[in-house]
């Protein structure tokens, strides 16, 4: 059973270092000149160029965060902010340069698209090299474009929504993103349109010592529904890479959005990402998040429940192994009456890995009739790792039903014993229990992604499975 799957692991698929010709590459570091250069290369309107420069000023004026992970080894001056492959954006995989296509083939993206996706966007370093959506959806008015194209085709919409949900003043890395963002996707689902199969974006960092700063903006209009999946990976290098993306989600009245992420950045990557959703009346926002990669992560997807009856769920699994410090969590901000939220966060730590759950649950004075639960569970796989749970709960009226629970512990000896009595080896038993532990997350992903998640767990468990 578990054994055969484990033997099949092929970690090399994530570690391909493609030899790619690059078209543009900015100098290391961050200056107004570099920011202007990026804007010029993209042929952007003036307002965007000014927005970038203003963001750079904000970036320079803000101190590094003093909480969360240790960022003292991250040197922005050593990071290349923009590096574009020598490729035009393609609508068919045949038009994608061979070595880049090979990378995505190994990751299984074109195959997945054929089988079960409504559309795919693929980004290679700083630029999107492939973007396509099923014709039928296009006819229904669904927009799925890479961000540069969207800025040209829908300038008014972009200007209205871009970095309004996550303003560059929010924190240092939001400002950094505002200055040097590149690539990403724009999705618009018109009123009442239900996109049944998922749209996917895949982000690949290939070059060493670079940064990826893609921007994702999704607007799900009234009564519409969508499922967006994001995957990310990079090959392992000795120098640091930086990922500081930004995701802005607008879920309008009665709409539903599910946003799933399987993150597997290489273990030299700093992942300092910002994700936020504004959820209107009766709308539903579901986050599903699997964090496996990166050296350090700070990521706290937020739902601002601003319309009456809005709901949000956050389900996550975070797996930190040797050399990793993953600081993740969710923010649920209840601003309107009868809103509800549910957070289920699971974490695994092994080989000295550190996981932090850092959450914020805020119920404002006007948010009466709120129902909310937060559940955190940490599983320690050895005695040299760490698991910290650090939530903040703020309740500002009396008509609230709030429950918070956290626990931490190791795999129960009794369970291992029970499974071994049925013929499993100790390692198989442990791997099985870990899979059971993350079931709430794998169970809420489409099958193919659940397989991917299990594959990642197997890779991480490899040491203990021997």
């Amino acid at each position, binding site marked *: 059973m578990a054994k055969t799957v484990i033997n099949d692991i092929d970690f090399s698929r994530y570690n391909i270092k493609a030899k790619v010709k690059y078209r543009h590459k900015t100098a290391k570091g961050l200056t107004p000149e570099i920011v202007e250069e990026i804007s010029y290369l993209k042929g952007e309107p003036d307002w965007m160029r000014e927005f970038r420069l203003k963001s750079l000023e904000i970036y320079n004026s803000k101190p590094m965060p003093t909480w969360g992970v240790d960022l003292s080894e991250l040197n922005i001056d050593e990071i290349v902010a923009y590096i574009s492959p020598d490729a035009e954006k393609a609508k068919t995989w045949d038009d994608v340069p061979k070595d880049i296509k090979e990378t995505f083939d190994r990751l299984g993206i074109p195959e997945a698209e054929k089988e079960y996706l409504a559309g795919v966007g693929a980004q290679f370093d700083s630029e999107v090299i492939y973007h396509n959506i099923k014709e039928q959806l296009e006819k229904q008015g669904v927009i799925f474009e890479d961000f540069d194209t969207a800025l040209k085709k829908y300038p008014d919409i972009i200007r209205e929504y871009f970095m309004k949900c996550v303003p560059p003043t929010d924190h240092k890395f939001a400002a950094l993103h505002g200055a040097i963002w590149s690539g990403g996707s724009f999705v618009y689902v018109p009123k009442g349109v239900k996109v049944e199969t998922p749209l996917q974006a895949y982000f690949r960092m290939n070059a060493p010592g670079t940064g990826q700063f893609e921007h994702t903006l999704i607007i799900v209009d009234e009564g519409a529904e969508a499922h967006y999946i994001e995957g990310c990976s990079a090959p392992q290098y000795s120098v640091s890479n930086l990922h500081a993306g930004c995701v802005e989600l607008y879920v309008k009245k009665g709409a539903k959005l599910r946003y799933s992420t399987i993150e597997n950045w290489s273990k030299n990557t700093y992942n300092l990402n910002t994700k936020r959703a504004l959820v209107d009346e009766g709308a539903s926002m579901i986050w599903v998040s699997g964090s496996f990669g990166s050296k350090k992560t700070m990521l706290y997807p937020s739902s601002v429940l601003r319309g009456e009856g809005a709901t949000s769920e956050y389900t996550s699994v975070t797996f930190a192994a040797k050399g990793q410090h993953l600081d993740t969590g969710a923010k649920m901000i209840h601003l309107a009456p009868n809103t509800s939220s549910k957070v289920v966060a699971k974490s695994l730590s092994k080989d000295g890995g550190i996981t932090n759950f850092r959450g914020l649950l805020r119920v404002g*004075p006007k948010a*009466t009739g709120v129902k909310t639960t937060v559940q*955190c569970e*940490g599983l*320690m*796989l*050895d*005695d*040299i*790792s*760490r*698991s*910290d*749970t*650090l*939530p*903040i*709960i*703020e*309740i*500002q*009226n*009396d*008509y*609230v*039903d*709030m*429950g*918070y*629970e*956290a*626990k*931490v*512990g*190791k795999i129960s000896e009794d369970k291992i014993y029970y499974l071994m009595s049925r013929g499993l080896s100790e390692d198989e038993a442990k791997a099985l229990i870990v899979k059971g532990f993350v079931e709430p997350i794998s169970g809420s992903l489409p099958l193919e992604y659940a397989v991917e998640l299990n594959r990642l767990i197997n890779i991480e468990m490899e040491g203990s499975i021997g």
Partner: protein
Amino acid sequence: MNDTLIKELNDRSIGWVKGYRESGFERFSRLNIPSWKRLNLNGLDLPEYKGYDRLQVTGDGIDVENIMDCGMEEDIREIMQDGQAFGVDEKFVSMVDSFFNTGVVIRVPKGYNSSVPVMVHYPSDGDLILDQNVIIAEPFTSVSIIIDHEAISEAGAFHNGITRVIAKEGSKVNLMKVQRLSDTSFNFDSVIGITGRDAAINWSVVELGSAKSAVSYTTYMNEQGGENNTKGIFFVDDRRRLDLSFKVNHIAPNTTSDIDIRGALKDEAYSIFRGDLDIKRGAKKAKGNEKESVILLDRTVRSDAIPALKCAEDDVEAGHAASCEELDKNTLYYMMSRGLSLDEARMMLVEASFNPIIDAIPDDGLKNAIREVIKRRLTCGEDY
């Protein structure tokens, strides 16, 4: 509070205490008063220094000395200069270390084993109380101590205190602290406990008074088999604020802790609960649990909870729970079907939540006094 005063106090101090006050003052003068985002101390003025002479102590067969005129042996020096982090804030801790104007040293002698509580009473008529308390329980002793800060008038007091508890091997210290200062008072209380092998420290916390109250308990379980149980109740009404913090450090194997806090908030009250369960590497088979539940009685209250659970060992059992919810509809209906008004039923449920903790108070007089305060605050403004 300045260096002239320090010199004056030093002249009156004996032995090592002189240097102690001075080094405390060094820290004190370097630091600013914290502003504190939640409790909010903006605009807090430190009061003029005054002496305090209302301390009352009762206890049988036990050595209770006034810290202002006791011998201050070497072991007390070690305890007071231990250097382990604790307290509401270093500014307030160093203020007490430099300017303490009252306090007790309690030694629980070998063979002492009594459940009759030692009473340490700090009445306040708008006083400045900077109390420095040290409790040392010799091995295999058992003691109950109640430290009570009580208003004897409506005048606003300023209380800032430190209590250090050393529970040596196999000993058991039950320390109850009651804070019922007047509604215009400021209260800062920093408590630290260190458990020896198989020793237990049990905190009981009753927080009822003061306009702003910041209370912090820190426990270090350095030796195996240590135990730290905390039970607490708080009632905050009007526009008062309370910041209640517990930090439990599991350092040695087989240490256990349990925290059970129940609170009620009324009017525009604001409470902040911090529970920090820190299981360090090496604390194998540690068990830690923490539970806080708050009953919210008005739409305008605010309740924050910041319960941290830190774990660096795998073979442990640790959990946290916090809840705040409306009172159960069916329970309210049942009580009202017996004639109680909605308010009466709610009040009664608050009492019900507090009772298991109040019932455990070892002194009947104090027990009844606490019940009365809660009842008065609960019914204030309600037509009975």
